[in-house]
């Protein structure tokens, strides 16, 4: 194989492809992340519709595939085939480019998200600054879309959205700074690198959410509220409040362009959740990495991904058995059994990798070669699990809380969140100086 492919596969390389200077593998990582995020958005779409339906004692999508499993695919095909209308009075070029701005901003952020110590496209010196900066570009797409539609509802939605995002960015940034301050406690120099932040939590032996209790927790809570506002999700979805603005900034959009807006929104949700996980929840680390790092514990933790997929396979299989007996459901039942078989096969693969790496003698070649692979799977698994909890919270918020009024939103942003985050920042600095 050519050198540019094999050079990064060497198991002594422990940095991300961007840091190792391997453009080829950086590109491969970009493609994997792009595909993974798109699939995650599709899954999120289904889970959101199902979970919201169950919150409201409905069934949700049931017709397309077993339990509506194929509904997102049907939706995607419908959106692709729909007529793409550009209003006659709209600004054609800006109308065309607006969804792309939002999508580009949402996806560019993923270059620095660390799924593991080496599972990132690149490790930038300014990681978190880059993330905040690029994700704040997303609002441009919304503002420009609202203006280009040349219509009243979108314009008001865009105005609301920009005012909201600019105000919550301030509290969000201050909460982030107090977490960055915590990275400097051990050796006096902090870091903005996303991988460095997680490693700092590892060195200090505590997730930053529990650091200087309750300071870390308050900063995290502020970020958790601000990130919902930043992604325009309920209860802060005033930009698309359907009772007042029909659909807000994307009222005039249809078909593919509308779906690009949705893709950008969900992508941005995953991105901000990743920031929260990286800064406060220990990123890719499994619980108690400093206490439970013996080989036996590593083996036990490496069983978890396989067991998760095994559990999902079991649920799918039980679901297939509980299908109604009529012949109408026969194809659906076969499909669900095949789905369960695929999940079970993945579970089996993961368990085999875990067993080879954890049970064979440590000196054997097979164990040594699979250990790096197993650790990679573990890191990505724990990171994705933590992000998934946040994604479920987004749905939960949407089902639970009514929408804020605009003056309430501004009051909360400027008069509650900003002073609290400033106070937490100052207190973190004082306590940090006192303890180090």
């Amino acid at each position: 194989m050519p050198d540019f492919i094999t050079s990064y596969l060497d198991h002594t390389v422990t940095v991300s492809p961007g840091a190792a200077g391997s453009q080829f593998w950086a590109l491969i990582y970009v493609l994997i992340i792009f595909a993974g995020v798109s699939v995650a958005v599709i899954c999120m779409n289904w889970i959101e519709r199902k979970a919201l339906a169950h919150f409201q004692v409905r069934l949700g999508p049931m017709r397309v595939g077993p339990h509506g499993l194929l509904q997102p695919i049907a939706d995607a095909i419908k959106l692709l085939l729909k007529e793409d209308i550009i209003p006659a009075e709209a600004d054609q070029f800006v109308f065309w480019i607006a969804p792309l701005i939002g999508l580009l901003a949402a996806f560019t952020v993923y270059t620095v998200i660390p799924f593991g110590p080496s599972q990132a496209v690149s490790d930038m010196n300014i990681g978190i600054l880059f993330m905040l900066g690029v994700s704040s570009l997303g609002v441009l797409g919304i503002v420009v879309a609202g203006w280009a539609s040349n219509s009243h509802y979108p314009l008001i939605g865009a105005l609301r959205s920009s005012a909201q995002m600019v105000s919550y960015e301030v509290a969000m940034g201050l909460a982030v700074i107090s977490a960055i301050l915590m990275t400097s406690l051990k050796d006096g120099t902090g870091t903005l690198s996303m991988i460095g932040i997680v490693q700092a939590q590892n060195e200090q032996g505590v997730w930053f959410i529990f650091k200087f209790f309750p300071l870390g927790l308050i900063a995290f809570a502020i970020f958790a509220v601000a990130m919902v506002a930043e992604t325009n999700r309920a209860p802060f979805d005033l930009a698309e409040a359907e009772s007042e603005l029909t659909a807000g900034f994307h009222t005039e959009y249809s078909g593919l362009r509308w779906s690009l807006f949705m893709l950008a929104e969900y992508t941005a949700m995953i991105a901000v959740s990743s920031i929260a996980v990286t800064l406060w929840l220990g990123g890719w680390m499994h619980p108690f990495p400093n206490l439970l790092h013996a080989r036996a514990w590593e083996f036990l933790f490496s069983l978890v991904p396989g067991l998760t997929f095994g559990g999902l396979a079991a649920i799918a299989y039980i679901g297939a058995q509980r299908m109604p007996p009529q012949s109408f459901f026969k194809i659906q039942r076969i499909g669900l059994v095949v789905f369960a078989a695929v999940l079970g096969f993945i579970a089996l693969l993961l368990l085999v990798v875990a067993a080879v790496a954890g049970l064979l003698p440590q000196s054997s070649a097979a164990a040594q070669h699979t250990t790096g692979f197993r650790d990679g799977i573990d890191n990505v698994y724990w990171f994705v699990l933590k992000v998934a909890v946040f994604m479920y919270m987004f749905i939960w918020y949407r089902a639970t809380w009514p929408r804020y009024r605009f003056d309430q939103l501004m009051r909360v942003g400027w008069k509650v969140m900003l002073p609290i985050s400033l106070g937490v920042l100052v207190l973190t600095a004082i306590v940090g100086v006192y303890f180090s």
Partner: protein
Amino acid sequence: MNSALNSGMAPVATPWFFYSLAGLAVISGVLVITRRNAVHSALALIVTLLSVAGLYLMLYAPFVAGVQIIVYAGGIMVLFLFVIMLVNIDRSSKERRFNRIWPIGLTASCALLALFVSAILKGKTLLNDPITGKPMWPDPMGKLAESSNTQQIASMLYGEVNKVGQYRMGEYTFAFEIASLLLLVAILGAVIMTKKKI
């Protein structure tokens, strides 16, 4: 990051990158003043700011690039667009765009261009302290003169975030605090001018 430097990261400062980014900045900069529609101008200005951020990245000043994106492209331009959206575009696009003082503007920009060109041509000696003959920028390691590697110089000067922090809280604290005081005065001024009753 240090591991990245040690592992022989491929240099980013290639002519190809520089010319494409600089060309993008110039073209979009021209578009800013030639578009009739103010929103198009603002979008072109965003492209200019982003390509300048790319140039900063190329010069191994990632912190400056990040600040450029977060402050200008993400913050100020959103407020620009916010204001422009509320202006009646139809009327303003029919007005005369260049007023009679354009010769003055042309002269000023030519003078600035001359300054830049002279700085490029004589940069090595022009920026030295006239009395000691040494470079005026901070030289913490005393190795700037010997080092021929742009990347090394940049990481010594301003490239990394901790360097910026050390200068800001060490050598240049006074200037930093004065600048923030100035900004505070500006904020107060804006509040007083917009609010009739405080």
